[in-house]
């Protein structure tokens, strides 16, 4: 063993390089995350659908807060407000006679829990003597390519009506102060009819795919009337998945593969080792020293 130092040095260099290559070659883990999607809000709208009840003021209170969040003044029969986005949580809805003091005892009130991304209609329903506030959970999902339609029967004069779409019955027997389930109907422009024992009302309604509608049957000044509401709308044909909207020109680029460099280091080490061993075998310590 006449060249222990050279041999040791070569071995050390090789091991160090191998270790370095290993450490540097470990790829950084790319962390991607998905987040749940909501703004923490839902929607509510308020309606007066009691035919013989005079106009009212409608108040929306966040639960436990005596200051109203929304006040609608002088809401008459047949009025449906637009939806309002509100923070999800517990609320109460109160009705007072139009013009009554905000601090007076409400004629009636009800509580409603608004869930995130859900929509609600709170309507005064029934005859004046049996007036009640009804909370409806409004649908916000549609079958692909179709529209959803439901009927609120708010005619007191025609206690029972049949509702048809282009002559085809969609709600056979809607009784006063009832709310039908949603019916899926093909997209198109249709003639809706409310048929009572003493009269008929018709209305042309355009149903786009991906939309949700409510038809309210009302007592008009001349018999039945139909109030057509578009409650919600989305893409009629929802795209599949997300969108391919980038080509990577501004993206961070990860390091290339360390393998070719590691192979080069390995080959070099082998070469150096071969040369070193050969030097040792031929016992040329003095010459090597002289040269170095």
């Amino acid at each position, binding site marked *: 063993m006449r060249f222990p130092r050279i041999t040791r040095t070569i071995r050390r260099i090789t091991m160090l390089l191998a270790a370095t290559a290993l450490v540097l070659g470990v790829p950084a883990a790319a962390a991607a995350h998905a987040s749940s999607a909501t703004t923490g809000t839902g929607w509510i709208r308020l309606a007066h659908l009691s035919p013989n009840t005079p106009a009212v003021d409608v108040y929306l209170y966040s639960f436990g807060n005596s200051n109203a969040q929304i006040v609608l003044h002088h809401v008459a029969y047949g009025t449906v407000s637009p939806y309002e986005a509100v923070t999800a949580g517990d609320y109460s809805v109160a009705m007072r006679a139009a013009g009554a003091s905000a601090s007076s005892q409400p004629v009636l009130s009800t509580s409603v829990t608004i869930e995130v991304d859900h929509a609600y209609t709170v309507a005064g329903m029934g005859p004046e003597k049996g007036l009640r506030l009804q909370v409806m959970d409004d649908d916000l999902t549609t079958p692909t390519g179709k529209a959803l339609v439901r009927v609120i029967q708010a005619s007191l004069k025609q206690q029972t009506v049949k509702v048809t779409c282009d002559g085809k019955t969609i709600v056979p027997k809607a009784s006063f102060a009832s709310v039908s389930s949603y019916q899926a109907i093909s997209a198109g422009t249709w003639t809706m009819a409310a048929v009572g024992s003493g009269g008929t009302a018709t209305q042309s309604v355009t149903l786009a795919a991906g939309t949700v509608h409510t038809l309210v049957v009302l007592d008009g000044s001349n018999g039945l009337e139909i109030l*057509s509401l578009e409650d919600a709308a989305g893409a009629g044909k*929802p795209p599949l998945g*997300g*969108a391919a909207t980038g080509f990577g020109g501004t993206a961070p680029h990860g390091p290339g593969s360390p393998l070719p460099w590691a192979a080069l280091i390995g080959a070099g080490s082998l070469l150096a080792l071969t040369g070193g061993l*050969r030097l040792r075998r*031929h016992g040329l310590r003095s010459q090597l020293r002289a040269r170095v």
Partner: protein
Amino acid sequence: MAFRRPAAIIFAAGLVVVAAGTAGLLLTRHSTPAMRPVAAGVGALPAPTGPIVAPPQSAAPRPVAAPVSLTIPLIGVSTKLITLGLASDGSLQVPPITDTAVAGWYTGSPRPGAIGSAIIVGHIDTVHGPAVFYRLNELRKGDQVYVRRADGTLVKFLVTTVQTYLKDQFPTQTVYGPTPDAELRLITCGGTFDPATGHYVSNIVVYATEAS
């Protein structure tokens, strides 16, 4: 003597190769960082002017004109809007690679300002640099977005939230599904870019609602 010189040369050559390999390894370990984003507000545009039309009523929906341009003052976006449909695979069509400076409105979604969720899509980048929605993820709650329509009217939206979704977990119902008020969805790419597929793995979605 004849064997010594080659042995020394082999040893030296080996060391040179190791040194070269090490240098190569070290020099290529650095990632190329993402392009540095411009600070928020830099290059901000003035809000467009024109009649802003009030939110629609639930009853008797009023038809609104088709969208023609989009302005997002805070991040310097001012672009015409092209119309987009669906690609043959059922996914959302995107503006062509030859026109990455524009955004597009998906004609299968409600018109901006009408009841429902209007979908507008734009690229984050080209193969070389930023595209129209490069700075979309800088938007925050309350930021303003304007859409001008074919009849000259303007509709103003306020951002409610900005979300990043992995594309394989994209919440289509939340993004494309019906809403009972006038809303806007601005969609672009984000997250990690996968060079193997040539696509980003995530989408950024900006949610906005019509200002009342």
